[in-house]
């Protein structure tokens, strides 16, 4: 019925196109999509049938998103296959060979049929990947340790503070080995490379700690879309549940991790929700230890947010009480 030539690039900056696209989304039951998310899409493709948009797919980074097909054009999945196939080819031409999709459970099979591999599924969503490198490739690179008590921490460390050190040190004292995963997403202020390096330098003295990048699987931007969800807090819950499930099903089981350490976060509702989700989903198989926040000697709260504020004003001497000497030295060098 359709062939490859029917797939055209859609420019959502065009008002008519955007309205066609939105109509199709709503008709296919995708109700939640914010304008911000639509703006972030790299490209969108669609199939028109006599002036009417009947199917579409979008790409955002290495994520395939917003697949919608009108019911009467589903015909045993051939349109779906064509759309996904097209998206994968576009990504390949951009040299992206590792693709992710986050989808409702009912579409999990359709993606698996196209060679996508399930990473984890919660009771609501499934997270799948396609291509190379796979999660197995990621795990194989992590050094295996033949010891009994293994723990893990996932941290952003933007930048690495005394609070982060305390968390790692506590875990290192209570376990035979600690895996520290660094959130691998480029964000404001400090690059992933810098954050990784600050943690490595700051934990050199601890002989039973491995610091590695968290890849696409731990607190990853791919597991954070909210488009098909009703409300923000519900979205947060789905995201955190998925993140915890991936950690449990893929990472912890492979490495034999029995405890996950997290920092107490009295000021951030989001982190609180996250910590709760970890407790709910990891326990009882994996212990979740919430470590209370430490203060400076003068009773000030140590937080990376504060440190970033001082760094922004260029007042590096003010951060000395919050960060290890190694971080301070690193930031001084970075500034030069």
């Amino acid at each position, binding site marked *: 019925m359709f062939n490859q030539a029917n797939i055209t690039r859609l420019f959502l900056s065009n008002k008519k196109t955007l309205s066609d696209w939105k109509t199709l989304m709503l008709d296919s039951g995708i109700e939640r999509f914010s304008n911000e998310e639509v703006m972030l899409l790299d490209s969108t493709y669609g199939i028109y049938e006599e002036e009417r948009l009947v199917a579409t797919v979008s790409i955002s980074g290495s994520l395939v998103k917003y697949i919608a097909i009108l019911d009467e054009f589903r015909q045993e999945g*051939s349109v779906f296959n064509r759309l996904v196939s097209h998206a994968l080819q576009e990504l390949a031409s951009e040299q992206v060979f590792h693709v992710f999709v986050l989808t409702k459970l009912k579409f999990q099979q359709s993606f698996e049929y196209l060679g996508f591999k399930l990473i984890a599924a919660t009771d609501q969503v499934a997270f799948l990947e396609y291509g190379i490198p796979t999660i197995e490739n990621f795990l194989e690179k992590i050094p295996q340790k033949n010891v009994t008590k293994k723990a893990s921490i996932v941290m952003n460390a933007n930048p690495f503070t005394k609070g982060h050190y305390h968390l790692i040190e506590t875990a290192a004292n209570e376990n035979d080995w600690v895996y520290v995963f660094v959130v691998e997403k480029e964000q404001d202020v400090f690059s992933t490379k810098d954050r990784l390096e600050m943690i490595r330098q700051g934990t050199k003295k601890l002989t039973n700690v491995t610091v590695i990048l968290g890849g696409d699987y731990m607190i990853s931007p791919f597991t954070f879309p909210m488009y098909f969800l009703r409300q923000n807090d519900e979205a947060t819950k789905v995201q955190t549940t998925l993140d915890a499930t991936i950690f449990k099903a893929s990472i912890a089981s492979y490495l034999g991790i029995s405890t996950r350490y997290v920092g107490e976060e009295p000021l951030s509702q989001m982190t609180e929700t996250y910590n709760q989700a970890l407790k709910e989903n990891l326990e009882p198989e994996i212990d979740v230890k919430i470590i209370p926040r430490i203060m400076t000697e003068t009773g000030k709260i140590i937080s990376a947010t504060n440190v970033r504020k001082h760094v922004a004003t260029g007042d590096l001497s003010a951060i000395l009480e919050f960060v290890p000497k190694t971080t301070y030295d690193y930031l001084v060098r970075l500034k030069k």
Partner: protein
Amino acid sequence: MKIENTAVAGTLESSDVQIMISEGKEGITIDLESQVLEQFGRQIKQVILDTLTAYDITDAQLKVVDKGALDCVIKARLTAAIHRSLGIQHKETPWEV
């Protein structure tokens, strides 16, 4: 020949096969997905291995999603993927292999 760059060829449509080839450390690993794995899995792998051998490729990681492709299609898609990976352009194409 040594595979260093990831490349892909083919589609996921019926009667086609999508083959992704990437750097491999030790030997050939083939992750094959097919509706006809039971009947033709071995044959598909043999076509892939023969084609790789023709190019003297000994280390590679392959992901193959078969949608019922004929042997000649599998060979063609893999050849295309290899050429893309190695950056072989028109004139250098060793059509004889």
